[in-house]
């Protein structure tokens, strides 16, 4: 399959076109074709994982054609250890979110078309090797997400959609400045990340710092890092469940992926110089996210803030600037995507029955919905980092990595972990234990809902018991990355 990456990226777009043709009233057919196309994408990504050669850390399945000749912008794609796990995560969560979209009853055709465009944007971002191409896919994600939150969202959807859109757009415009600046300051003027990686290392640390600042701001808003995180809870609270899964599962990773793919190789001097502030930001993210989440009454806002604190771990991993740290942060990204995606699906299950997200409204769910209680407990334990489940491995590697570089930051991170534990345990206590309130008599999870959650549970267990299943893909790429520093 010579152009497997292009097929993966543009298959959802093809799906969007096919969906456009189907008349709007045939909702069942629309849902089926959307799911079919997403399944096809998942199949292609699966094939990609199988064909991927673990030992070779460099770019594989690379495609490189000239796009805008005069300026030297090339349509170049490639996948390596860093992006493979995230592409698989995107395809999987996209497929599951598509299945979980049966709750969407209004304007179904529009929903799925916009959803497919979103998939294209996300897959493209992870596979692009040209800065402008990366930026283009980065922007294509914004518009569909804006519509998904803005049209099918909750009561305050416009506010949330606008806030999300402008916040991320402001950041990405500054990134555009950075891209143009890199193009002109790098000796052989080029946009390709690979050639830039070799040439920008020679730039003076101050210049690298400035460029890093521009890129980092866009990624910081997306990750989100402490001061720029206020769009996340609103976007999550107002987004419908499947969109929330994608938002938490994939969009947050685009920021951290940017750090690993662009900032580390292109600005190594700046990264080593600014590693400590990055680590401190990570700890603030971790502790602050857990504290604010603890005080929330809305379950989705709580999980949104908890994913802010999980992203703190990813920042710690990147701040470590060594192979363990990078492995840890990359694994933490993958695990967080799986776990938080599942958490939001579970919240969707309860929201669909109770039509409220106030934690006070639930109580004693365990006796009413035992199967749901099992899955929610499982996922809560995974996200608080219980060893034996995937959450722990990522966090452990990040902490181990950052301990070598900055012991005090790691100690603060480990202590911050306790806040995370308290957060999720109290959530379980409030939601599941205690005596069931009046009117709490909802049916347990149906077969379809279980089938959506099951693959995520299996992956969490598999990565928890045998982390090498994911680590083997990224080890060699990260060794090459570390050699660049």
């Amino acid at each position: 399959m010579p152009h497997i990456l292009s097929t993966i990226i543009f298959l959802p777009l093809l799906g969007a076109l096919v969906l456009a043709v189907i008349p709007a009233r045939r909702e069942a057919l629309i849902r089926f074709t959307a799911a079919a196309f997403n399944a096809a994408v998942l199949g292609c990504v699966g094939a990609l994982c199988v064909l991927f050669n673990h030992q070779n850390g460099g770019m594989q399945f690379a495609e490189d054609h000239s796009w805008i000749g005069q300026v030297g912008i090339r349509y170049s794609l490639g996948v390596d250890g860093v992006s493979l796990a995230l592409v698989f995560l995107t395809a999987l969560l996209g497929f599951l979110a598509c299945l979980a979209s049966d709750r969407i009853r209004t304007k179904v055709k529009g929903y799925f078309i916009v959803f497919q465009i979103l998939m294209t944007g996300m897959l493209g971002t992870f596979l692009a090797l040209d800065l402008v191409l990366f930026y283009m896919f980065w922007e294509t994600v914004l518009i569909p997400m804006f519509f998904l939150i803005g049209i099918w969202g909750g009561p305050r959807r416009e506010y949330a959609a606008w806030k999300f859109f402008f916040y991320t757009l402001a950041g990405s415009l500054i990134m555009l400045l950075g891209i143009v600046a890199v193009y002109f300051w790098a000796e052989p003027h080029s946009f390709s990340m690979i050639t830039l990686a070799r040439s920008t290392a020679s730039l003076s640390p101050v210049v690298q710092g400035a460029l890093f600042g521009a890129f980092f701001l866009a990624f910081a808003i997306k990750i989100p890092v402490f001061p720029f995180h206020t769009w996340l809870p609103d976007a999550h609270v107002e987004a419908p469940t499947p969109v929330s899964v994608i938002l938490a599962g994939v969009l947050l990773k685009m920021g951290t992926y940017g750090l690993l793919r662009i900032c580390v190789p292109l600005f190594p001097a700046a990264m080593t110089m600014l590693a400590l502030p990055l680590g401190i930001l990570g700890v603030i993210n971790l502790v602050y996210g857990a504290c604010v989440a603890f005080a929330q009454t809305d379950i989705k806002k709580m999980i949104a803030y908890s994913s802010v604190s999980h992203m703190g771990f990813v920042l710690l991993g990147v701040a470590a600037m060594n192979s363990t740290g990078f492995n840890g942060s990359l694994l933490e990204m993958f695990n967080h995507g799986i776990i938080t995606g599942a958490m939001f699906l579970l919240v969707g299950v309860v929201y669909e029955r109770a039509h409220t997200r106030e934690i006070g409204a639930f109580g004693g769910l365990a006796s009413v919905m035992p199967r749901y209680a099992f899955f929610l407990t499982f996922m809560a334990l995974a996200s608080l980092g219980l060893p034996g489940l995937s959450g722990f491995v990522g966090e452990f590697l990040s902490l181990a990595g950052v301990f070598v570089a900055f012991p005090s930051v790691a100690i603060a991170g480990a202590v911050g972990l306790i806040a995370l534990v308290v957060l999720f345990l109290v959530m379980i206590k409030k939601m599941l234990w205690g005596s069931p309130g009046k009117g709490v008599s909802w049916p347990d999870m149906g077969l379809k809902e279980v089938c959506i959650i099951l693959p995520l549970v299996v992956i969490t267990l598999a990565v928890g018991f045998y982390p090498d299943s994911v680590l083997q893909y990224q080890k060699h790429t990260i060794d090459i990355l570390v050699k660049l520093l």
Partner: protein
Amino acid sequence: MVKLAHWISVLPFMAFWLNIMFGRKLGKLSAFISVGTSVMAALLAVLVCMGFMAGGSSYALTGWLTVNGQPITLGIIIDSLTVMMLLVVTIVGTLIQIYSIGYMSGDPRYSRFFAYISLFMASMLGLLLADNLLLLYIFWEGVGLCSCLLVAFWYEKPAAAAAGVKAFVTTRVGDTGLLLGILILLSLGNTLHFADMASVKGPESLVALAAVLIFLGAMGKSAQFPLHTWLPDAMEGPTAVSALIHAATMVAAGVYLVARLYGFFLAHPLALQMVACVGMISALMAASIACVTNDIKRILAYSTISQLGLMMLALGTGGYTGGTFHLMTHAFFKALLFLGAGSVIHAAHTQDIRAMGGLFTKMKMTSVTFIIGALALAGIMPFSGFWSKDEIFCAVWHHGNMWFFAALIATSFMTAFYMARLVLLAFFGASRLEKDVHESPLVMTGPLVVLAAFSAGLGLLGSPWCHGAFQHFIQAKDEAIGLNVPMAICSTMVSLSGIMGAYMIVVRNVKFPTWTWLKKMAVNKYYVDELYEVVFVRPFQRICVVSAVFDGACIDRAVNDVGRVVGACGQAVRRIQTGMIDRYLLVQAGGVLMLLVFILGKVCRIF
């Protein structure tokens, strides 16, 4: 034969998955699945013991993770300590599961209980078999999780739910210490395998800090002084759970960890000193509280904390055999006492010993076995408690300083006192119960008898009659084998005086002039719970509320204000378009004028 050791942990894990997946359909059968796997595990443990006797050794399973370039492999460790603990845990576990078939018979979530028990057994056995600190940490957290799930088993009761969360969080605080210890050792380039833990490379101060942090993890799990508050609250769970987890196995994990890393701790006397001090404080404090509490399960809980304190004290002062021997014997008689208490509560439906009385005549089997257990705990001659406590007396006498020995004497005295008080109040004297009481079914009293036999006979292993079989087995390095007669007489005298004291107060109700403030302090558990509430819990909640408000008010509003400011600017600029043509012309003419002035001034230099 030794190569089958990892199945000991895998079998209960399979039972867990079976019970979870098909719990509802299995119903009563789930009990037999978990008991069956437990029995098989016990047999395997015996086989492994024989294999070990015949020279079996540790073996590695698979590679798992590479951290800082250091490959961490999973493996199974087989040495005397592990085998001993395997036997103890599997035997006690099996007996308790048989007991809980009767105890939990009416419960709606019957199969889920046995699922959790199997998961606990799997984690505990995994913890014992782990050959490196990281794998041990993983099962360490698994055990903590099971204790939380089982304590909060009757989650309808808010107290049980809160106790479960408290248990998990407090042990998690300790586990963070263990995690940091692991991180320090990893960052210094050590491989975390127990085999080479004695020769740890790295700066002295950092490795000592790692040792202290690892002991912090042990303190959390074994409910030692600063982190002991969760154990008494954990009595909310079913009594079978208290017996298995909070008496015999999980709490012993902390002592096991210290014993396992004994070479490492010996290399750092500072850490050993801390172990001994913490042990002493916990022992004294818990024993004093136990003397004044009236809830039967809480007395036994504080007694467990106190006995674990003694074990830590023994290990801290170089008494490796004393600690491990007491660990083994304590597991049996404390399990016996808890199950006896469970049978009493099951029959009398009350936990307050002052409301009981005269049970001896009605519940012959439970009373006899309970009294055997009590005597073993108090350390009376033929029973196992005497022999293991005697080892501790010798160790503390030879190596520890006077303070430790005085504390040991006081703790033994108080132990004998509160056990005698409990027995006298609960089983003898007039019956203060409303309804009549009948003996528990055989399925509950059977394990009691077996445990009583173990409590009675197990001590002889370390006695001179078996010429120090246990000491040889545990490969003690420096102990002087043989009974130190004066030490034995002294410990017996202390125990008898404790029992006489209890007899005087309970039966003769003689008022001893005890210090009133000490009694008040003990009744209120030295206000430790309230201290934590004020120092940790409430500030944390306040910080969270403040940060949530800060997040909403400051950062969120700042972002919205940016939007509002731009809007306001738009409004201001909008006012200029007045719609009056001459106003536009005037501005235009003004513009032309300024343009002319600028051009003539700057460009043509006419001015």
